[in-house]
């Protein structure tokens, strides 16, 4: 992998999880919707030897009409597990999260939500691009992932994800950035 300013080029063999993420995020690309993938999938993308059943995605707050266009297209291939009607799904995005899976399946699923605090808005604004062949996806800054997993989530799995990211990107991780994100997290909580 090649780490550049705001971009990582990854020449990996795509896993079934990667293919699912690319298929789903293509809908965001199609409608120029700003999104960022956060949490466990980020470390898995870069090689962590574990899988996950959900992929967390923050999506810019959309007005209902734009959401409806997106929803109608997405539901040709995916279905929403926790609501059926578009208005209900839209409300879920605002208050909690809407989970989508491939039609006929329940996992893996993609958990979508609108940002609800400053940290989530920062993740969206400072996202980094990962180039996967001819495709691209956007992920949260690695330093924010590390700070959030170490300071907020703190489960064994999350602490190990953070350690993994620190080790794989040991030449690229910016400790000052981690400190800055830590401070922001403390302010928000």
């Amino acid at each position, binding site marked *: *992998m090649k780490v550049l300013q705001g971009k990582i080029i*990854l*020449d*990996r*063999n*795509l*896993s*079934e*999880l990667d293919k699912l993420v690319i298929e789903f995020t293509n809908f965001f690309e199609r409608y120029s919707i700003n999104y960022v993938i956060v949490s466990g999938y980020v470390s*898995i993308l*870069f*090689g*962590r*030897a*574990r*899988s996950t*059943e959900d992929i967390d995605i923050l999506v810019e707050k959309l007005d209902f009409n734009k959401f409806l266009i997106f929803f109608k297209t997405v539901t040709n291939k995916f279905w929403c*597990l*926790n609501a059926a009607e578009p208005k209900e799904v839209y409300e*879920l995005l605002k*208050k*909690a999260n809407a*989970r989508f899976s491939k039609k*006929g*399946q*329940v*996992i*893996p*699923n993609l958990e979508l939500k609108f940002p609800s605090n400053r940290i989530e808005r920062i993740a969206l604004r400072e996202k980094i691009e990962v180039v996967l062949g001819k495709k691209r996806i956007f992920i949260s800054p690695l330093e924010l992932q590390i700070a959030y997993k170490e300071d907020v989530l703190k489960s*064994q799995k999350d602490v*190990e994800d953070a*350690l*993994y990211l620190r*080790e*794989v990107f*040991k030449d690229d991780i910016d400790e000052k950035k981690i400190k800055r994100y830590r401070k922001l997290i403390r302010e928000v909580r």
Partner: protein
Amino acid sequence: MKKSVTREDFIRYWAEWVRTHSDREWSAQQNVVINSQIKSAIEFYRKNKKARETLLKMIRKMR
């Protein structure tokens, strides 16, 4: 006495392996783990309707 390998040791070891091998090499290894886990989970919920309904109920409750 031989020191036992901890989870942390393994994570560091695997991260170093990833750092020192091509993306194609490490991802081929990793995909064996990921794809088999996904495949068996999908199969499990496809065959086990009760488990599928329970999971869906749980997800819908989590709103």
